[in-house]
């Protein structure tokens, strides 16, 4: 799996991410440092969630309602 190294704009943590996920453009990265979510620094925007996940039906990306306190 091709990867990207994305820095969290909030806490500066280093995040190793599937580049396919970043290619979608609307899907946010979950930060390993602060559990917050942020968009990749750049995106080709040329792939869909369904294509990246190899799914046969429309897919919605799920995020927790609130950042965990832990």
């Amino acid at each position: 799996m091709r990867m990207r190294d994305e820095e969290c704009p909030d806490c500066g943590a280093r995040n190793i991410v599937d580049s396919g996920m970043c290619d979608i453009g609307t899907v946010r990265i979950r930060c390993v440092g602060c559990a917050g979510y942020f968009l990749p620094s750049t995106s080709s925007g040329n792939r869909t969630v369904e294509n990246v996940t190899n799914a046969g039906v429309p897919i919605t990306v799920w995020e927790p309602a609130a950042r965990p306190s832990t």
Partner: protein
Amino acid sequence: MKQSLRSWMADSGKEAGLRRVNDLVNPMGYEVTALLAQIEESDPAPVHFTAVRSLDGRPGNFSLLFNAYATRQAVGTVLDLTAGSWRELLERYLDRERELRDPVVVADAPVQQHVVTGADVRLEALPFVRHVEHDGGPYFTPITVSRKPNGWGHNLSWNRAMYLDRDHMGVHVSPRQLWGLHREAENDGRDLPVAMVLGHHPAFHLASAARTPLEVDEFAVAGALLGEPLEMVPSRTFGADLMVPAQAEVVVEGRLLAGRRAAEGPFGEFMRYLGPQKLSHVLEVDAVTWRDDPVVLGIFTGYADHLNAHVSIHAGHLAAARTAVPQVEQVAWFRGGGPTTAVISMRKTADGQPMRAAMAVMAPANTLKQVIVVDDDIDVFDAQEVMWAVSTRVRADVDIAVLPNLQGHLLDPSQQGYAGTTGLVIDATWPQGAVRPPTARVPDAAIAEFPLGSYRMEGV
């Protein structure tokens, strides 16, 4: 009853080298894996952390067992056999795996001594673990139970699972059987009912990785490895539609959602790199059940425990290679790269057999992309010897084959697309009929005739 994690610890702990840490530890602060990393350097062994903080930071009543597979000796006790070498262990494993035993329904369900459901579910009460630097945070490495179609019984799959909120986890599922079962349900608009087993006898966990045909009940494989039928009871959420192991320590019941994915990862993987954050399946939790003094079985990911836990897959390669070419002797993996590269040794009787054996191990395993085949004078577990054969018996133009468009593994960092990679076979055997030059060595008879001990030798 010997089919529980606690009975393994009580009966085989000593032989496995089991140690106990009774100080209160915080697994989310890397405290558990920091200790395991030091033990790995000095004297690898299974470790039971008896006092553990939960994800919410409180001292909880769930304890953690790691490194059940840290050494060959420990793996031997898991399978209730003694083996002097990996070679012997793999052979005995295959004997065991063949003795399928159907599961039995029982009335007594220790795993349901405590039950929380619905709005009362709080995953924060569980002892999630942070394993390695840069990983996504709170993880377990459970076994996912699901039901196969057509009355084929149960599917078991080993899946990393990351905490998302009080009743959700992100679950990494490679495109194999569980993935296929979920896809079928999803295409019909249905969630897939599952039960995540957080701790059971370590032989149960191994059964999940066995390469089992879809029509075989993997509870029967668990029975084979346990040496007795697996006891099962209806799950609290799905009743008899999804049975769960009665003697498990902790079970998380829920559904892999249709039409939903979540960012999950990174996680330290068997290839010894971080597997990246990706879009993974979402588990919505309906119930958590556990027995008194529950023990969660964790895998020390990226380290020996993790690679050795692949013993069922490794043995499966040996069986597959032999089915194609009965002259196959052994199959080995290396810690560097783990299951991506295998070495096969054989008593070759015809040219072309090495390629046939290589294809047989590659075909069923998407982890494997490179295979080296050697003659049976080479110890496949000794990388130096393997490289000696590659260096002296290979001519690249005739002995190396490149196989384009092979399905590979998502976690292989050299892979570019979703699943496509390239295969490689190196035939490092002597051509049939070739004169094999004798190795350069002093005759045994001379060594016997002139024992070093009978000479006076002094330093200068």
